């Protein structure tokens, strides 16, 4: 690549960051229109974008940012008013720039028209204070000509008061950080993974070594290896901030279109999560957030009638909970009515008409494939993909999702995720004399030792046993996997899992231990085998398959 090409590449990376910063600032400007800090921040970002664009000879981009800057100058001097439509226009410019940058990334000579949007900018700058028109609550983001032709309404003060928590000022772009390619980090993570495996082998052989000094060194080595592992995995972690911000934007867009007034609270946006997980989490979260605004929150008239404030609230929060990350999407809408869900489920044949399913279990039925309670299709929800897709996505991330709902008061979706995908807590089990398997800890609900006489036959080939008064189907894992197993052991261990509120138990010969394992994919040469999610290298240096018991159980019904 030539020198200009290199510089342009750097510019595009930088611009992507800058635009995230400006979007964040525009959104906080909406809640704090008079904060000079925010305006200065925006001004600085726009200015540096313009300067850099000029330097790498992107003339069109520079002219466009120049037009944007001119408007921002007026905002700064308070010559124009910052209101909803102004923010919408600024956000629209931001989107336009983002698309432009994406275009330039794929095609360095790509052109994007900007004349229309510049005209809008000029119109807005020439309006003067108090005269910037505010459109009705309409879709302002995807139509080109709505901004200039609607009646002015002064709602600045209202929005100003409506802010709930003061958003933090955007961090300066010159933070002490370096940009590293993700694959370099991944290489490091893989190598550290190997280091951990070797370390485990060493630790298990420790007692065979005579020398105290070497034994002690192994212990120290093991401590430092763990630290290296933690630090390396942390390299892949990024804050949830930019994803949360995207959600904030989605709430804004969705609620505008649906003519609902919704305020978003973001909590815990500085919490970090594995980059891959953040990427994977984005779609399900978009779905849940749209769902909350579209289905969860009532129409404004209904809210008023129910004696609720017109302005609805959506909370998006993240917090650590017992080694896992909990992400919560909560709304103060109408909640989920278990009666309606039950009725619908009976209609769809998901449950029996006389089913005595408790309310809590009933509302989880909305995760079943093909279940959607809202019959009409809106622009944002109900495109045929439902919450079952959200659940599938979360399950793929080895997480789980739960709902709680109080009719009339709102709905809460809680997503629990492991902190990383590279390492899991696993239970090592012995299937027969030689074969060991790993079962992910998060799938296991309970481990109980049972006697052969505790297992009762049911029908020709099914077995059950009684656990805490519940009758639980029990399967012989060796038989399922078609591997050798003892036919009549005196005692055996049952691994109990729960899939969709139902319990299942798997008999194994012995549980060896619980340990962290580094997940290795099975090669492309072997492909996907149902019931096996990957492999791991155990302390004895041998490879062992990681089982997916959920998949084995659901595979039965597939």
């Amino acid at each position: 690549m030539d020198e200009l090409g290199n510089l342009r590449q750097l510019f595009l990376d930088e611009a992507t960051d800058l635009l995230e910063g400006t979007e964040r600032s525009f959104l906080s400007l909406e809640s704090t229109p008079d904060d000079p800090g925010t305006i200065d921040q925006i001004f600085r970002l726009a200015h540096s974008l313009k300067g850099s664009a000029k330097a790498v000879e992107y003339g069109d981009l520079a002219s466009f940012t120049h037009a944007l800057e001119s408007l921002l100058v007026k905002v700064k001097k308070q010559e124009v008013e910052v209101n909803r439509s102004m923010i919408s226009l600024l956000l629209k410019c931001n989107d336009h720039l983002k698309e432009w940058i994406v275009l330039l990334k794929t095609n360095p000579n790509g052109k994007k028209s900007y004349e229309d949007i510049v005209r809008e900018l000029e119109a807005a700058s020439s309006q003067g204070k108090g005269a910037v028109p505010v459109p009705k609550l309409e879709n302002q983001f995807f139509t080109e000509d709505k901004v200039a032709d609607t009646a002015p309404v002064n709602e600045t003060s209202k929005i100003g008061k409506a802010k709930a928590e003061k958003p933090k000022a955007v961090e300066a772009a010159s933070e002490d950080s370096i940009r590293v390619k993700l694959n370099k980090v991944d290489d490091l993570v893989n190598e550290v993974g190997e280091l951990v495996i070797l370390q485990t082998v060493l630790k298990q052989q420790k007692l065979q070594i005579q020398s105290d000094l070497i034994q002690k060194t192994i212990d120290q080595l093991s401590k430092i290896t763990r630290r290296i592992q933690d630090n390396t995995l942390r390299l892949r972690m990024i804050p949830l901030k930019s994803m949360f911000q995207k959600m904030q934007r989605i709430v804004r867009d969705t609620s505008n279109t649906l003519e609902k007034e919704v305020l978003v609270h973001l909590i815990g946006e500085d919490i970090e999560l594995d980059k891959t997980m953040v990427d994977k989490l984005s779609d399900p979260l978009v779905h849940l957030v749209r769902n909350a605004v579209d289905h969860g929150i009532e129409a404004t008239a209904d809210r008023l009638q129910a004696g609720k404030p017109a302005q609805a609230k959506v909370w998006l929060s993240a917090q650590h909970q017992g080694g896992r990350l909990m992400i919560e999407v909560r709304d103060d809408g109408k909640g989920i009515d278990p009666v309606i869900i039950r009725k619908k489920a009976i209609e769809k044949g998901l449950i029996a008409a006389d089913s005595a399913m408790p309310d809590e279990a009933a509302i989880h039925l909305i995760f079943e494939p093909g279940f959607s309670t809202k019959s009409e299709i809106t622009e944002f929800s109900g495109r045929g993909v439902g919450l079952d897709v959200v659940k599938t996505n979360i399950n793929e991330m080895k997480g789980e999702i739960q709902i709680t709902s109080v009719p009339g008061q709102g709905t809460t979706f809680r997503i629990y995720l492991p902190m990383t995908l590279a390492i899991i807590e696993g239970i090592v089990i012995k299937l027969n004399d030689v074969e060991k398997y790993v079962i992910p800890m998060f799938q296991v609900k309970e481990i109980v030792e049972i006697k052969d006489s505790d297992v009762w036959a049911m029908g020709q080939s099914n077995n059950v046993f009684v656990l805490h008064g519940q009758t639980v189907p029990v399967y012989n894992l060796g038989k399922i996997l078609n591997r050798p197993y003892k036919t009549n052991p005196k005692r055996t261990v049952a691994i109990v899992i729960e899939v969709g509120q139902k319990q299942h138990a798997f008999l194994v010969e012995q549980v060896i231990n619980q340990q962290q394992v580094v997940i290795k994919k099975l090669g492309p040469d072997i492909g996907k085998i149902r019931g096996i999610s990957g492999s791991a290298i155990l302390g004895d240096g041998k490879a062992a398959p990681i089982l997916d018991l959920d998949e084995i159980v659901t595979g039965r019904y597939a």
Partner: protein
Amino acid sequence: MKEDSSSRHDRKNGAERHLIFSLGTEEYAVPILKVKEVIEIPDITPIPHTPRHYMGIMNLRGLVISIIDLRLKIKGIAQEIGKKNAVIILDFGSFCFGVAVSSVNRVIPIENDEVKERPPMESLESLEYIQGVVYRDKRLILILDVSKALNIDDMQAIKHPHSNIKIA
């Protein structure tokens, strides 16, 4: 299995170095460039619901790779595991995997014009995986097309006939 040629690059035109190994009584050759390394038969962990020639997975210095019984795969006869058996780790760029063979014998340069075509045969058996034959030192060496013998598509298909786990 030391090389008999002193230089890494053979000066002779079109000569490519091949690793010679046995499956039972026959000798086969694979281009050395495809070979990552040769190891003793390691600890192999069987994987449920795979065909018989899929021996399982092994830990190669932190890398999990699959091992296939090549004799069983192409000759239909299971390997008798003994001292001379070895696993050849083949490099397919994006991934590696191992084939278990009866023994690994030597490395020789084979010139292109030395390779004879596989004769047409009246047989239903597909011999596609034999690229050609070389007659040397009164022995016949079959040149193995590794990708065909262990066809990647075929390998991806390993899962299909056996993957329907049923809970009895």
